Protein backbone atom coordinates (compact mmCIF):
# COMPACT_ATOMS: atom_id res chain seq x y z
CA UNK A 1 0.00 0.00 0.00
CA UNK A 2 2.73 2.41 1.01
CA UNK A 3 4.74 1.49 -2.06
CA UNK A 4 1.77 2.22 -4.30
CA UNK A 5 1.31 5.68 -2.81
CA UNK A 6 5.01 6.39 -3.05
CA UNK A 7 4.98 5.32 -6.67
CA UNK A 8 1.96 7.51 -7.43
CA UNK A 9 3.52 10.48 -5.67
CA UNK A 10 6.70 10.07 -7.70
CA UNK A 11 4.73 9.95 -10.92
CA UNK A 12 2.84 13.11 -9.99
CA UNK A 13 6.08 14.90 -9.11
CA UNK A 14 7.66 13.80 -12.39
CA UNK A 15 4.61 14.98 -14.33
CA UNK A 16 4.54 18.37 -12.64
CA UNK A 17 8.24 18.80 -13.35
CA UNK A 18 7.78 17.71 -16.98
CA UNK A 19 5.00 20.23 -17.52
CA UNK A 20 6.96 23.10 -16.00
CA UNK A 21 10.08 22.11 -17.94
CA UNK A 22 8.07 21.99 -21.16
CA UNK A 23 6.62 25.42 -20.50
CA UNK A 24 10.02 26.81 -19.66
CA UNK A 25 11.49 25.53 -22.92
CA UNK A 26 8.61 26.99 -24.89
CA UNK A 27 9.11 30.33 -23.17
CA UNK A 28 12.84 30.29 -23.95
CA UNK A 29 12.06 29.46 -27.56
CA UNK A 30 9.65 32.38 -27.66
CA UNK A 31 12.32 34.69 -26.24
CA UNK A 32 14.81 33.55 -28.83
CA UNK A 33 12.41 34.07 -31.72
CA UNK A 34 11.48 37.44 -30.30
CA UNK A 35 15.14 38.49 -30.08
CA UNK A 36 15.63 37.29 -33.63
CA UNK A 37 12.71 39.39 -34.83
CA UNK A 38 14.36 42.45 -33.32
CA UNK A 39 17.44 41.86 -35.46
CA UNK A 40 15.26 41.13 -38.46
CA UNK A 41 13.37 44.40 -38.16
CA UNK A 42 16.59 46.41 -37.86
CA UNK A 43 18.22 44.63 -40.80
CA UNK A 44 15.19 45.33 -42.92
CA UNK A 45 15.40 48.99 -41.94
CA UNK A 46 19.05 49.01 -42.87
CA UNK A 47 18.35 47.42 -46.26
CA UNK A 48 15.61 49.97 -46.92
CA UNK A 49 17.84 52.91 -46.08
CA UNK A 50 20.71 51.96 -48.35
CA UNK A 51 18.98 52.58 -51.72
CA UNK A 52 18.02 56.04 -50.42
CA UNK A 53 21.62 56.82 -49.55
CA UNK A 54 22.85 55.54 -52.89
CA UNK A 55 20.22 57.60 -54.66
CA UNK A 56 21.23 60.73 -52.72
CA UNK A 57 24.95 60.47 -53.49
CA UNK A 58 24.70 59.02 -57.01
CA UNK A 59 24.49 62.31 -58.89
CA UNK A 60 27.48 63.88 -57.17
CA UNK A 61 29.83 60.95 -57.59
CA UNK A 62 29.08 59.57 -60.98
CA UNK A 63 32.71 58.51 -61.44
CA UNK A 64 32.74 56.42 -58.22
CA UNK A 65 30.51 53.82 -59.84
CA UNK A 66 32.43 50.86 -58.50
CA UNK A 67 32.00 51.78 -54.86
CA UNK A 68 28.30 52.37 -55.33
CA UNK A 69 27.79 49.15 -57.23
CA UNK A 70 29.63 47.20 -54.56
CA UNK A 71 27.25 48.58 -51.93
CA UNK A 72 24.16 47.77 -53.99
CA UNK A 73 25.39 44.28 -54.71
CA UNK A 74 26.24 43.56 -51.09
CA UNK A 75 22.88 44.92 -50.06
CA UNK A 76 20.95 42.75 -52.56
CA UNK A 77 22.91 39.72 -51.49
CA UNK A 78 22.07 40.40 -47.82
CA UNK A 79 18.37 40.89 -48.66
CA UNK A 80 18.29 37.56 -50.46
CA UNK A 81 19.92 35.71 -47.59
CA UNK A 82 17.77 37.44 -44.99
CA UNK A 83 14.60 36.20 -46.67
CA UNK A 84 15.15 32.64 -45.53
CA UNK A 85 17.43 33.01 -42.54
CA UNK A 86 15.97 31.54 -39.36
CA UNK A 87 17.42 31.04 -35.88
CA UNK A 88 17.72 27.35 -36.73
CA UNK A 89 19.65 27.94 -39.94
CA UNK A 90 21.32 30.58 -42.05
CA UNK A 91 22.26 32.91 -39.20
CA UNK A 92 25.99 32.54 -39.83
CA UNK A 93 25.53 33.15 -43.54
CA UNK A 94 23.47 36.25 -42.90
CA UNK A 95 26.05 37.50 -40.42
CA UNK A 96 28.74 37.13 -43.08
CA UNK A 97 26.60 38.92 -45.69
CA UNK A 98 25.90 41.77 -43.30
CA UNK A 99 29.59 42.06 -42.45
CA UNK A 100 30.36 42.32 -46.18
CA UNK A 101 27.68 44.99 -46.52
CA UNK A 102 29.19 46.90 -43.59
CA UNK A 103 32.62 47.00 -45.17
CA UNK A 104 31.17 48.11 -48.53
CA UNK A 105 29.29 50.87 -46.74
CA UNK A 106 32.47 51.81 -44.89
CA UNK A 107 34.25 52.33 -48.20
CA UNK A 108 31.35 54.41 -49.47
CA UNK A 109 31.49 56.60 -46.36
CA UNK A 110 35.17 57.24 -46.94
CA UNK A 111 34.34 58.41 -50.44
CA UNK A 112 31.44 60.57 -49.26
CA UNK A 113 33.81 62.36 -46.88
CA UNK A 114 35.64 63.66 -49.96
CA UNK A 115 32.53 65.58 -51.01
CA UNK A 116 31.85 68.11 -48.24
CA UNK A 117 29.18 69.80 -50.34
CA UNK A 118 27.22 66.60 -50.53
CA UNK A 119 26.73 66.46 -46.77
CA UNK A 120 25.88 70.14 -46.57
CA UNK A 121 23.31 70.37 -49.34
CA UNK A 122 21.42 67.09 -49.38
CA UNK A 123 19.99 64.79 -46.75
CA UNK A 124 23.10 62.59 -46.86
CA UNK A 125 24.12 63.52 -43.31
CA UNK A 126 20.64 62.57 -42.13
CA UNK A 127 20.78 59.24 -43.94
CA UNK A 128 24.21 58.53 -42.52
CA UNK A 129 22.95 59.21 -39.00
CA UNK A 130 20.04 56.84 -39.62
CA UNK A 131 22.40 54.16 -40.90
CA UNK A 132 24.76 54.59 -37.93
CA UNK A 133 21.85 54.26 -35.55
CA UNK A 134 20.52 51.21 -37.36
CA UNK A 135 23.92 49.56 -37.23
CA UNK A 136 24.12 50.26 -33.49
CA UNK A 137 20.67 48.78 -33.04
CA UNK A 138 21.64 45.67 -34.94
CA UNK A 139 24.68 45.19 -32.74
CA UNK A 140 22.69 45.71 -29.50
CA UNK A 141 19.91 43.42 -30.72
CA UNK A 142 22.56 40.84 -31.63
CA UNK A 143 23.85 40.96 -28.07
CA UNK A 144 20.37 40.18 -26.79
CA UNK A 145 19.83 37.47 -29.37
CA UNK A 146 23.12 35.72 -28.61
CA UNK A 147 22.41 35.80 -24.87
CA UNK A 148 18.89 34.38 -25.20
CA UNK A 149 19.94 31.83 -27.81
CA UNK A 150 22.79 30.59 -25.61
CA UNK A 151 20.46 30.16 -22.65
CA UNK A 152 18.02 28.26 -24.85
CA UNK A 153 20.73 26.04 -26.36
CA UNK A 154 22.29 25.16 -23.03
CA UNK A 155 18.95 24.46 -21.38
CA UNK A 156 17.66 22.06 -24.02
CA UNK A 157 20.87 20.02 -23.96
CA UNK A 158 21.18 19.71 -20.22
CA UNK A 159 20.03 16.57 -18.45
CA UNK A 160 17.17 16.04 -17.62
CA UNK A 161 15.84 18.86 -19.78
CA UNK A 162 16.97 17.06 -22.94
CA UNK A 163 14.29 14.41 -22.36
CA UNK A 164 11.63 17.11 -22.72
CA UNK A 165 13.33 18.94 -25.60
CA UNK A 166 11.84 16.56 -28.19
CA UNK A 167 8.29 17.21 -26.99
CA UNK A 168 8.80 20.94 -27.02
CA UNK A 169 10.27 20.71 -30.55
CA UNK A 170 13.38 22.46 -29.25
CA UNK A 171 16.29 22.52 -31.66
CA UNK A 172 19.65 24.17 -31.15
CA UNK A 173 19.79 27.62 -32.77
CA UNK A 174 22.72 29.34 -34.41
CA UNK A 175 24.46 32.26 -32.81
CA UNK A 176 25.22 35.48 -34.66
CA UNK A 177 28.98 35.19 -34.84
CA UNK A 178 31.59 36.35 -37.24
CA UNK A 179 33.96 33.44 -37.58
CA UNK A 180 36.16 34.52 -40.42
CA UNK A 181 39.24 36.34 -39.13
CA UNK A 182 39.19 38.73 -42.05
CA UNK A 183 35.58 39.71 -41.42
CA UNK A 184 36.31 40.23 -37.76
CA UNK A 185 38.51 43.13 -38.73
CA UNK A 186 36.53 46.30 -38.18
CA UNK A 187 36.87 48.65 -41.13
CA UNK A 188 38.20 52.03 -40.05
CA UNK A 189 36.11 54.54 -41.90
CA UNK A 190 36.82 57.92 -40.33
CA UNK A 191 40.08 58.93 -41.95
CA UNK A 192 39.44 62.65 -41.87
CA UNK A 193 41.65 64.62 -39.53
CA UNK A 194 38.94 66.98 -38.39
CA UNK A 195 37.80 66.65 -34.76
CA UNK A 196 34.67 64.64 -34.14
CA UNK A 197 31.52 66.66 -33.91
Amino acid at each position, binding site marked *: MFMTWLFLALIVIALVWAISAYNKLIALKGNTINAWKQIDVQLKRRHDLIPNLVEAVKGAMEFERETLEAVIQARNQAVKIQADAMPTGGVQQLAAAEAALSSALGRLNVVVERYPDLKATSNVAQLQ*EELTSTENRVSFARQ*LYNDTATTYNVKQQQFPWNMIAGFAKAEPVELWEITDEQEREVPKVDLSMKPKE
Partner: protein
Amino acid sequence: MSDANLFEQQAANRRRSAILVAIFLLFFAWIGFGGDLIFHLYTTDAGTSSYSPQVREDAASYRHMFPWFGVCATLLGVAMAWWGWKKGPKEILWATGAWEMIEPSRAEEKVLVNVVEEMAIASGLPRPTVWIIPDRDPNAFATGTAVDEAHVAVTEGLLDTLNRDELQGVVAHEMAHIRNHDVKLMTLLAALVGVMALIADGTRRLIWYGGVGRRRGGGGGKKGGAGALVAILLIAWLFSVILAPIVSRLLALGVSRKREFLADATAAQFTRNPAGLASALRKIEDAAEPTKAIKRGTAHLCIADPAGRRLTHKQGRVANLLATHPPMALRIARLKAMAYQYDKTGEIPEAV
Protein backbone atom coordinates in the same frame (compact mmCIF):
# COMPACT_ATOMS: atom_id res chain seq x y z
CA MET B 1 25.40 42.84 -14.61
CA SER B 2 24.31 39.26 -14.41
CA ASP B 3 20.63 38.44 -14.02
CA ALA B 4 21.00 37.31 -10.43
CA ASN B 5 22.67 40.59 -9.57
CA LEU B 6 19.98 42.52 -11.36
CA PHE B 7 17.15 40.81 -9.52
CA GLU B 8 18.99 41.31 -6.25
CA GLN B 9 19.32 44.97 -7.11
CA GLN B 10 15.66 45.31 -8.00
CA ALA B 11 14.61 43.47 -4.86
CA ALA B 12 16.87 45.69 -2.77
CA ASN B 13 15.25 48.75 -4.30
CA ARG B 14 11.78 47.40 -3.60
CA ARG B 15 12.82 46.78 -0.01
CA ARG B 16 14.20 50.28 0.28
CA SER B 17 10.98 51.72 -1.11
CA ALA B 18 8.93 49.77 1.42
CA ILE B 19 11.16 50.89 4.30
CA LEU B 20 10.95 54.44 3.09
CA VAL B 21 7.17 54.40 2.98
CA ALA B 22 7.08 52.79 6.44
CA ILE B 23 9.36 55.47 7.91
CA PHE B 24 7.27 58.12 6.25
CA LEU B 25 4.01 56.75 7.67
CA LEU B 26 5.56 56.35 11.11
CA PHE B 27 6.67 59.94 10.96
CA PHE B 28 3.18 61.05 10.09
CA ALA B 29 1.72 59.00 12.89
CA TRP B 30 4.22 60.61 15.26
CA ILE B 31 3.48 64.13 14.06
CA GLY B 32 -0.26 63.52 14.28
CA PHE B 33 -0.82 61.15 17.18
CA GLY B 34 2.16 62.53 19.11
CA GLY B 35 0.58 65.96 18.90
CA ASP B 36 -2.68 64.44 20.10
CA LEU B 37 -0.96 62.76 23.02
CA ILE B 38 0.71 65.97 24.10
CA PHE B 39 -2.49 67.88 23.77
CA HIS B 40 -4.33 65.16 25.65
CA LEU B 41 -1.83 65.13 28.54
CA TYR B 42 -1.88 68.87 28.57
CA THR B 43 -5.64 69.02 28.93
CA THR B 44 -6.33 65.99 31.19
CA ASP B 45 -6.13 67.94 34.39
CA ALA B 46 -7.97 70.90 32.95
CA GLY B 47 -11.32 71.13 34.66
CA THR B 48 -10.04 69.60 37.89
CA SER B 49 -8.48 72.83 39.09
CA SER B 50 -10.31 74.86 41.66
CA TYR B 51 -12.23 77.33 39.59
CA SER B 52 -15.95 77.82 39.68
CA PRO B 53 -18.12 74.97 38.33
CA GLN B 54 -18.84 77.00 35.21
CA VAL B 55 -15.12 77.36 34.39
CA ARG B 56 -14.55 73.69 35.22
CA GLU B 57 -17.21 72.67 32.75
CA ASP B 58 -15.78 74.93 30.04
CA ALA B 59 -12.32 73.56 30.61
CA ALA B 60 -13.56 69.99 30.51
CA SER B 61 -14.91 70.60 27.06
CA TYR B 62 -11.37 71.51 26.01
CA ARG B 63 -10.20 68.08 27.02
CA HIS B 64 -8.64 66.47 24.03
CA MET B 65 -9.92 62.90 23.78
CA PHE B 66 -10.25 61.90 20.12
CA PRO B 67 -6.94 61.98 18.18
CA TRP B 68 -8.14 64.37 15.48
CA PHE B 69 -4.65 65.54 14.57
CA GLY B 70 -3.39 62.01 14.11
CA VAL B 71 -6.27 60.91 11.92
CA CYS B 72 -6.17 64.03 9.80
CA ALA B 73 -2.37 64.15 9.42
CA THR B 74 -2.19 60.46 8.48
CA LEU B 75 -5.02 60.69 5.98
CA LEU B 76 -3.53 63.84 4.51
CA GLY B 77 -0.08 62.28 4.35
CA VAL B 78 -1.31 59.13 2.65
CA ALA B 79 -3.40 61.11 0.18
CA MET B 80 -0.53 63.44 -0.67
CA ALA B 81 2.02 60.65 -0.99
CA TRP B 82 -0.33 58.73 -3.24
CA TRP B 83 -0.97 61.81 -5.33
CA GLY B 84 2.76 62.52 -5.47
CA TRP B 85 3.43 58.97 -6.59
CA LYS B 86 0.76 59.04 -9.28
CA LYS B 87 1.50 62.51 -10.59
CA GLY B 88 5.13 62.75 -9.46
CA PRO B 89 6.86 62.10 -12.79
CA LYS B 90 4.72 64.61 -14.66
CA GLU B 91 5.03 67.18 -11.87
CA ILE B 92 8.79 66.82 -11.86
CA LEU B 93 8.95 67.24 -15.63
CA TRP B 94 6.60 70.22 -15.63
CA ALA B 95 8.55 71.85 -12.82
CA THR B 96 11.63 71.87 -15.05
CA GLY B 97 9.66 73.37 -17.92
CA ALA B 98 10.43 70.35 -20.09
CA TRP B 99 8.44 69.58 -23.21
CA GLU B 100 7.90 66.13 -24.63
CA MET B 101 9.61 65.49 -27.94
CA ILE B 102 7.27 63.57 -30.18
CA GLU B 103 8.54 64.60 -33.60
CA PRO B 104 12.23 65.58 -33.75
CA SER B 105 12.81 68.76 -35.71
CA ARG B 106 16.54 69.39 -35.39
CA ALA B 107 19.34 67.00 -36.38
CA GLU B 108 20.48 66.84 -32.72
CA GLU B 109 16.99 65.83 -31.63
CA LYS B 110 16.89 63.10 -34.24
CA VAL B 111 20.20 61.78 -32.89
CA LEU B 112 18.75 61.81 -29.37
CA VAL B 113 15.69 59.83 -30.44
CA ASN B 114 17.92 57.34 -32.25
CA VAL B 115 20.20 56.97 -29.24
CA VAL B 116 17.26 56.39 -26.91
CA GLU B 117 15.93 53.80 -29.34
CA GLU B 118 19.33 52.05 -29.40
CA MET B 119 19.60 52.00 -25.63
CA ALA B 120 16.08 50.66 -25.31
CA ILE B 121 17.22 47.71 -27.41
CA ALA B 122 20.48 47.30 -25.48
CA SER B 123 18.70 47.31 -22.13
CA GLY B 124 15.74 45.25 -23.35
CA LEU B 125 13.28 47.83 -22.03
CA PRO B 126 10.35 49.55 -23.70
CA ARG B 127 11.29 52.94 -25.13
CA PRO B 128 10.81 55.72 -22.56
CA THR B 129 9.32 59.05 -23.58
CA VAL B 130 11.88 61.75 -24.36
CA TRP B 131 11.70 65.26 -22.89
CA ILE B 132 13.78 68.35 -23.58
CA ILE B 133 14.54 70.84 -20.83
CA PRO B 134 15.13 74.37 -22.12
CA ASP B 135 18.37 75.05 -20.25
CA ARG B 136 21.87 75.83 -21.48
CA ASP B 137 23.64 73.74 -18.85
CA PRO B 138 24.22 70.09 -19.79
CA ASN B 139 22.29 67.75 -17.50
CA ALA B 140 19.83 64.87 -17.72
CA PHE B 141 17.53 62.83 -15.53
CA ALA B 142 15.08 59.96 -15.66
CA THR B 143 11.82 59.61 -13.80
CA GLY B 144 8.80 57.34 -13.81
CA THR B 145 6.85 54.87 -11.72
CA ALA B 146 7.61 51.70 -13.67
CA VAL B 147 9.89 50.43 -16.43
CA ASP B 148 7.10 50.83 -19.00
CA GLU B 149 6.07 54.20 -17.59
CA ALA B 150 9.42 55.97 -17.69
CA HIS B 151 10.66 59.31 -18.97
CA VAL B 152 14.12 60.50 -19.91
CA ALA B 153 14.74 64.25 -19.92
CA VAL B 154 17.84 66.02 -21.21
CA THR B 155 18.69 69.70 -21.39
CA GLU B 156 19.24 71.55 -24.67
CA GLY B 157 22.75 72.24 -23.44
CA LEU B 158 23.45 68.53 -23.30
CA LEU B 159 22.41 68.05 -26.91
CA ASP B 160 24.64 70.90 -28.04
CA THR B 161 27.68 69.96 -25.96
CA LEU B 162 28.01 66.22 -26.39
CA ASN B 163 28.86 64.13 -29.43
CA ARG B 164 26.99 60.97 -30.36
CA ASP B 165 29.05 58.55 -28.24
CA GLU B 166 28.85 60.77 -25.19
CA LEU B 167 25.12 61.27 -25.56
CA GLN B 168 24.76 57.51 -25.85
CA GLY B 169 26.64 57.12 -22.56
CA VAL B 170 24.38 59.60 -20.76
CA VAL B 171 21.20 58.03 -22.11
CA ALA B 172 22.55 54.59 -21.15
CA HIS B 173 23.14 55.87 -17.62
CA GLU B 174 19.51 57.01 -17.40
CA MET B 175 18.25 53.74 -18.86
CA ALA B 176 20.34 51.93 -16.26
CA HIS B 177 18.49 53.87 -13.55
CA ILE B 178 15.22 52.80 -15.13
CA ARG B 179 16.19 49.14 -15.41
CA ASN B 180 17.59 48.92 -11.88
CA HIS B 181 14.25 50.31 -10.63
CA ASP B 182 16.10 53.32 -9.26
CA VAL B 183 13.68 55.79 -10.79
CA LYS B 184 10.77 54.31 -8.85
CA LEU B 185 12.62 54.76 -5.60
CA MET B 186 13.86 58.21 -6.58
CA THR B 187 10.47 59.45 -7.71
CA LEU B 188 8.93 58.16 -4.50
CA LEU B 189 11.65 59.97 -2.57
CA ALA B 190 11.05 63.20 -4.45
CA ALA B 191 7.33 62.94 -3.72
CA LEU B 192 7.89 62.19 -0.03
CA VAL B 193 10.47 64.94 0.43
CA GLY B 194 7.98 67.38 -1.03
CA VAL B 195 5.09 66.19 1.14
CA MET B 196 7.30 66.15 4.23
CA ALA B 197 8.30 69.77 3.72
CA LEU B 198 4.67 70.78 3.17
CA ILE B 199 3.34 68.99 6.22
CA ALA B 200 6.13 70.25 8.48
CA ASP B 201 5.47 73.75 7.27
CA GLY B 202 1.74 73.38 7.83
CA THR B 203 2.24 72.01 11.33
CA ARG B 204 4.51 74.89 12.25
CA ARG B 205 1.79 77.34 11.28
CA LEU B 206 -0.79 75.35 13.21
CA ILE B 207 1.38 75.44 16.34
CA TRP B 208 1.84 79.16 15.96
CA TYR B 209 -1.86 80.00 15.72
CA GLY B 210 -2.90 77.19 18.07
CA GLY B 211 -0.36 78.33 20.63
CA VAL B 212 -1.69 81.89 20.57
CA GLY B 213 -5.24 80.60 21.05
CA ARG B 214 -4.27 78.45 24.01
CA ARG B 215 -2.40 81.18 25.78
CA ARG B 216 -5.50 83.35 25.67
CA GLY B 217 -7.54 80.47 27.10
CA GLY B 218 -5.09 80.27 30.01
CA GLY B 219 -5.02 76.59 30.99
CA GLY B 220 -4.48 75.19 34.48
CA GLY B 221 -1.06 74.88 36.11
CA LYS B 222 1.12 71.95 35.03
CA LYS B 223 2.95 70.31 37.88
CA GLY B 224 4.77 67.08 38.66
CA GLY B 225 5.64 64.10 36.43
CA ALA B 226 2.97 64.67 33.84
CA GLY B 227 4.28 68.19 33.24
CA ALA B 228 7.87 66.99 32.69
CA LEU B 229 6.66 64.26 30.34
CA VAL B 230 4.65 66.75 28.36
CA ALA B 231 7.66 69.07 28.15
CA ILE B 232 9.98 66.30 26.92
CA LEU B 233 7.43 65.06 24.41
CA LEU B 234 6.77 68.57 23.25
CA ILE B 235 10.47 69.28 22.68
CA ALA B 236 10.98 66.00 20.83
CA TRP B 237 7.90 66.67 18.76
CA LEU B 238 8.93 70.20 17.86
CA PHE B 239 12.41 68.98 16.95
CA SER B 240 11.07 66.35 14.62
CA VAL B 241 8.76 68.84 12.91
CA ILE B 242 11.64 71.26 12.37
CA LEU B 243 14.19 68.65 11.33
CA ALA B 244 11.91 66.47 9.16
CA PRO B 245 12.50 68.29 5.87
CA ILE B 246 16.26 68.35 6.41
CA VAL B 247 16.48 64.70 7.41
CA SER B 248 14.29 63.55 4.54
CA ARG B 249 16.49 65.47 2.12
CA LEU B 250 19.68 63.96 3.54
CA LEU B 251 18.02 60.55 3.24
CA ALA B 252 17.27 61.25 -0.40
CA LEU B 253 20.87 62.24 -1.02
CA GLY B 254 22.25 59.16 0.72
CA VAL B 255 20.07 56.81 -1.27
CA SER B 256 20.95 58.54 -4.52
CA ARG B 257 24.77 58.57 -4.19
CA LYS B 258 25.02 54.80 -3.97
CA ARG B 259 23.02 54.35 -7.14
CA GLU B 260 25.26 56.45 -9.34
CA PHE B 261 28.29 54.16 -9.47
CA LEU B 262 26.07 51.24 -10.28
CA ALA B 263 24.24 53.13 -13.01
CA ASP B 264 27.61 54.13 -14.52
CA ALA B 265 28.71 50.50 -14.58
CA THR B 266 25.42 49.33 -16.10
CA ALA B 267 25.64 52.08 -18.72
CA ALA B 268 29.08 50.78 -19.69
CA GLN B 269 27.56 47.33 -20.09
CA PHE B 270 24.85 48.70 -22.37
CA THR B 271 27.06 50.77 -24.65
CA ARG B 272 30.25 48.65 -24.46
CA ASN B 273 31.92 52.03 -24.51
CA PRO B 274 32.81 53.30 -21.00
CA ALA B 275 35.02 56.03 -22.48
CA GLY B 276 31.95 57.72 -24.01
CA LEU B 277 30.25 58.25 -20.66
CA ALA B 278 33.56 59.23 -19.03
CA SER B 279 34.12 62.02 -21.52
CA ALA B 280 30.46 63.08 -21.23
CA LEU B 281 30.85 63.38 -17.46
CA ARG B 282 34.01 65.40 -17.96
CA LYS B 283 32.16 67.83 -20.24
CA ILE B 284 29.18 68.08 -17.89
CA GLU B 285 31.52 68.77 -15.01
CA ASP B 286 33.37 71.44 -16.94
CA ALA B 287 30.16 73.34 -17.57
CA ALA B 288 30.16 74.69 -14.04
CA GLU B 289 27.12 76.92 -14.21
CA PRO B 290 24.05 75.62 -12.42
CA THR B 291 21.11 74.04 -14.20
CA LYS B 292 18.55 76.67 -13.24
CA ALA B 293 15.57 74.77 -14.58
CA ILE B 294 16.07 71.90 -12.14
CA LYS B 295 15.01 72.59 -8.56
CA ARG B 296 16.72 71.29 -5.44
CA GLY B 297 13.97 68.77 -4.72
CA THR B 298 14.74 66.77 -7.85
CA ALA B 299 18.53 67.12 -7.71
CA HIS B 300 19.02 63.48 -6.76
CA LEU B 301 17.45 62.37 -10.04
CA CYS B 302 20.02 64.05 -12.28
CA ILE B 303 23.17 62.65 -13.84
CA ALA B 304 25.20 65.42 -12.20
CA ASP B 305 24.37 67.78 -9.36
CA PRO B 306 22.34 70.58 -10.99
CA ALA B 307 23.54 73.12 -8.40
CA GLY B 308 26.82 73.19 -10.29
CA ARG B 309 28.67 73.53 -7.00
CA ARG B 310 32.25 72.52 -6.75
CA LEU B 311 31.19 70.19 -3.95
CA THR B 312 31.60 67.28 -6.29
CA HIS B 313 35.33 67.93 -6.31
CA LYS B 314 35.81 67.30 -2.66
CA GLN B 315 35.80 64.15 -0.69
CA GLY B 316 35.19 63.87 3.01
CA ARG B 317 32.37 63.47 5.46
CA VAL B 318 30.54 66.76 5.14
CA ALA B 319 30.91 67.06 1.39
CA ASN B 320 29.78 63.45 1.03
CA LEU B 321 26.75 64.01 3.25
CA LEU B 322 25.57 67.01 1.27
CA ALA B 323 26.36 65.84 -2.25
CA THR B 324 23.70 64.13 -4.34
CA HIS B 325 26.40 62.44 -6.38
CA PRO B 326 29.77 60.84 -5.73
CA PRO B 327 32.80 62.95 -6.62
CA MET B 328 32.90 63.30 -10.40
CA ALA B 329 36.62 62.56 -10.56
CA LEU B 330 36.01 59.21 -8.90
CA ARG B 331 33.23 58.30 -11.33
CA ILE B 332 35.36 59.24 -14.32
CA ALA B 333 38.33 57.31 -12.94
CA ARG B 334 36.20 54.18 -12.52
CA LEU B 335 34.87 54.45 -16.06
CA LYS B 336 38.36 54.96 -17.42
CA ALA B 337 39.48 51.84 -15.58
CA MET B 338 36.59 49.96 -17.18
CA ALA B 339 37.52 51.25 -20.63
CA TYR B 340 41.10 50.10 -20.08
CA GLN B 341 39.99 46.66 -18.98
CA TYR B 342 37.59 46.42 -21.92
CA ASP B 343 40.42 47.21 -24.33
CA LYS B 344 42.61 44.57 -22.69
CA THR B 345 40.17 41.72 -22.22
CA GLY B 346 37.17 42.53 -24.41
CA GLU B 347 34.94 42.14 -21.36
CA ILE B 348 33.18 44.88 -19.46
CA PRO B 349 33.90 44.28 -15.77
CA GLU B 350 30.82 44.33 -13.53
CA ALA B 351 32.40 46.80 -11.17
CA VAL B 352 35.79 48.33 -10.63
